[in-house]
């Protein structure tokens, strides 16, 4: 039984399809959870008190059935009053609410100047780190490999990474194996395929044979999504087109210089290409896989275990910022605070178009897609499994893969669940979920079958 459920509720169903027992079905539960996730809880004290009282009650009646019998006879409020007479609930609540001392206050967090890093960046100018007792410097970094090396070297305590990177680092693909963790996803959606203006009549991917594409990194959602998209349209991403890793800042310059025909890139790069009149947005990445994860907040397992309180405070700040960024009405304000030279170093209107979803597409239309980018911190383990299937599909990892184990040890869904509750959000009930990529449902429990189902693959 989850810790934050109300054990004083005698009507609580003990078994049902819905994990919390309050809804008729899992779908309904998820729907409610999503709605609640957008509301920050009113009073922290009340919440802690409920948790403490619940724990005490559970300690007295360890069996669910016995507790229910007791509650039914005396009623919840009488029970609470009765318990508080012989157990100092308020003191216990205070002890619980008091944050444990933070081991290290001054932290350095690395980021790449793209809108995916919005929660990590905005937490600085908007004071989310401060609120959780941290003094964080967010340091702009030149490329993913440098972020990786600087985090491994401990120059950064934590960093903004592409969500496949912690998995790759843990597995030792493209670097030495180091146990890495990814306790929070930064953003979902928020990428796009941009093509050079001269290709504006070639909207059918089948006509893209011989194109040169850029993606930010080999171990990136961008690479996997672009390959997936091309393969679904019958193009072999290794032989029919060329895909190279180009750091995001260099993409627009390369597109202008005609070195590449297009890219699947993080924003604001896509919007910047449109803004400068060199490219147009072919599709948004949400049209490939709606609500796909992209970038992530990552830290080494050493940091997570070595300074657990600092880590908790940092993650809470990020989750808090993410919740703030979810709300459309805050997006304009966020765009203004992260556009300056110290952070993204982009014209405000470019960042604003990305975050608000009202944007010019480069072909003369103004589009309105409010969920062009969204923010959801929850690191579903099934995301990791999907990433692993694609790594295997394209030959980045070989042999047998322990999908569930890797997913669990890298994507710290349980930690996130706990901390989301502490900052007053409702985490999803399950740490795994199924989703649809270009019309094809992914079942996280059958990764090998999924890989086998593709025609174009390198296995």
């Amino acid at each position, binding site marked *: 039984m989850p810790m934050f459920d109300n054990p004083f509720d005698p009507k609580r169903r003990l078994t049902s399809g819905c994990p919390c027992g309050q809804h008729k079905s899992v779908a309904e539960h998820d729907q409610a959870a999503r709605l609640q996730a957008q509301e920050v809880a009113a009073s922290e004290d009340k919440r802690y008190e409920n948790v403490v009282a619940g724990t005490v009650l559970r300690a007295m009646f360890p069996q669910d059935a016995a507790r229910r019998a007791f509650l039914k006879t005396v009623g919840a409020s009488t029970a609470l009053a009765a318990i508080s007479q012989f157990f100092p609930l308020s003191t216990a609540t205070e002890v619980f609410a008091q944050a444990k001392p933070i081991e290290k206050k001054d932290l350095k967090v690395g980021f790449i100047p793209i809108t995916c890093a919005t929660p990590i960046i905005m937490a600085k100018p908007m004071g989310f780190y401060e609120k959780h007792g941290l003094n964080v410097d967010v340091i*702009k970094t030149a490329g993913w490999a*440098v972020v990786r090396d600087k985090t491994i070297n401990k120059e950064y305590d934590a960093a903004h990474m592409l969500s496949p990177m912690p998995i790759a680092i843990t597995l030792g693909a493209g670097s030495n194996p180091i146990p890495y963790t990814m306790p929070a996803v930064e953003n979902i959606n928020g990428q796009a395929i941009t093509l050079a203006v001269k290709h504006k009549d070639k909207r059918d991917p089948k006509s893209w044979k011989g194109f040169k594409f850029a993606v930010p990194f080999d171990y990136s959602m961008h690479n996997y999504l672009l390959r997936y998209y091309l393969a679904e349209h019958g193009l072999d991403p290794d032989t029919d087109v060329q895909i190279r890793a180009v750091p995001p800042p260099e993409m627009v310059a390369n597109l202008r210089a005609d070195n590449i025909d297009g890219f699947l890139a993080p924003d604001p790069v896509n919007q910047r290409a449109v803004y400068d009149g060199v490219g147009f947005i072919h599709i948004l990445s949400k049209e490939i896989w709606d609500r796909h994860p992209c970038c992530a907040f990552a830290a080494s397992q050493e940091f997570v275990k070595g300074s657990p309180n600092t880590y908790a405070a940092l993650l809470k700040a990020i989750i808090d910022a993410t919740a703030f960024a979810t709300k459309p009405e805050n997006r304009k304000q966020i765009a203004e605070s992260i556009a300056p030279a110290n952070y993204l170093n982009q014209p405000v209107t470019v960042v604003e*178009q990305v975050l608000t979803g009202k944007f*010019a597409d480069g072909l*003369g239309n103004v589009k309105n897609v409010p969920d062009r980018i969204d923010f959801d911190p929850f690191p579903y383990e099934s995301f990791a499994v999907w990433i692993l299937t694609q790594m295997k599909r394209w030959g980045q990892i070989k042999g047998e893969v322990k999908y569930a184990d890797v997913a669990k040890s890298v994507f710290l869904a349980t930690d996130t669940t706990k901390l989301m509750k502490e900052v007053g959000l409702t985490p999803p009930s399950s740490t795994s979920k199924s989703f649809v990529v270009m019309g094809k449902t992914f079942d996280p429990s059958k990764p090998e079958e999924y890989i086998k189902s593709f025609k174009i693959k390198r296995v």
Partner: protein
Amino acid sequence: MTLSARAGIVSILILVLFLGAWHLATSGSSSVQQMDPEYAKLMGITATQGKSAMPGPLQVGATLWKHLTNPFYDNGPNDKGLGIQLAYSIGRVAIGYLLAVLVAIPLGFLIGMSQLMSRALDPFIQVLKPISPLAWMPLALYTIKDSNYSAIFVIFICSVWPMLINTAFGVATVRKEWLNVARTLEVGPLKRAFTVILPAAAPTILTGMRISIGIAWLVIVAAEMLVGGTGIGYFVWNEWNNLSITNVINAILVIGIVGMVLDQLLARAAKLVTYPE
């Protein structure tokens, strides 16, 4: 009119011609399609007015003035004034370069004075010398585990070779007569090294140092673009990120001027130790 005055006039003429051509080349605007005003509001001026993405000299001058009047502002770890960035770069170059001097000159002396060491170390020097300093970067980051020290290491490794080779050459080619004179006067080896060989080899050593400082300054910009954080190289990268060619041109100007000053400093020093025979 003296030769230098005439040369000065020609220099100024070339500059004016260059600026004029630059201005003309960038001031024109190409044709643009008609746009819906709401759409146009979301686009940049390159797209809406067909303005060249390349800034003109006036624009560059204006930004340069802005940087020069406020060189030391500090808006947080990723946005500092040009003066602060330059100070970081010069600091890194100075440390890496001085370390290289400390290693290269004694080692060069050893190689120059001893045939055995010269032969023994030669293959290593020949292999290590042509390696691009930036190729060391990943290795440095991996082993030193600190990007700042890695940048300093890269400066060190690139500036060590010209000094080492020049010192060895200078020491080895001290005129035999002078050494023989020293020997007949029964000068001890240490005294010989400092009073005969060092002054004789100094001009060659300083030439090596001058080549080295030039290379070090070339490399720091690239190294800082790679590791980021601070420095003039990071400034270039950060402005490139924003596709701000104006600021990149500014940085190029400043890098050139600082490089020239460093080179001239060592040229002066070289003059001080050169004696006509």
